[in-house]
């Protein structure tokens, strides 16, 4: 089961909870791999 996305439509106010699409899931895995690896990181959060 793929992770969930909450999508808020600002035009209608509706909130849709849905599974990630294949493309979204592929990006999610890239993001996940990025923070799991040491080389990540345009991130401010690695411990000093």
């Amino acid at each position, binding site marked *: 089961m793929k992770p969930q996305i909450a999508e808020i439509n*600002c035009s209608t*106010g509706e909130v849709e909870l849905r599974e990630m699409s294949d493309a979204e899931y592929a990006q999610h895995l890239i*993001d996940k791999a990025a923070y799991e690896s040491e080389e990540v990181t345009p*991130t*401010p*959060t690695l*411990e000093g």
Partner: protein
Amino acid sequence: MGYSVFPVASTGLTVSDLVAKEDWTLISEYKSTSSVSSITFSNIPQTYRTLALNVAGLIEATGTQTVVLRLRFNGNSGDQYNNSGVNVQSSAPGNEDVYNYTNSDAIYIGGTWALGESKRWAGFYEIYNYTKTSTKFIRGYSSFERSGGYATKATINVGSYREGSTTNAITSIAIATGGSIATGSQNYAAVQLFGVK
């Protein structure tokens, strides 16, 4: 012979414009009732000067991982974002750092060392020039609780975004992690998007 205190052109700003108070409107908000890995605002109205994003929630990683939070616009994850910022820890002086990344795949808005636990975070971000076809600018502040005895960290983020060869206004904003934004026993995340005139 008189003169104008505000010598603006007839087609420019009026005195009323100059003294008008800011007008904030809640465009949409979301409070989670289950775990999600991404929160997206779509169909953002193009009727404001600035957008403001107010976020709070719990984030989680498995194992000894850092959870990184990202802002993306219009579904783009190409090299269209520039980031700069400062990290400040609540203790352990000397561990503060300054970062600058160009051509990134997102605006990085901080993160936490979660160690498989749910940790609290909060942030506030402003997005300027979002209706225009030129570069957009982002600035924000965030604070993260962390595991493993590491001090709470605060970040100050500034960045910019432009869609490569295209010049679109921002119509959608995604908060993504690669992990989980709202999780743990409370499954809690609250996000509000404001429009500012």
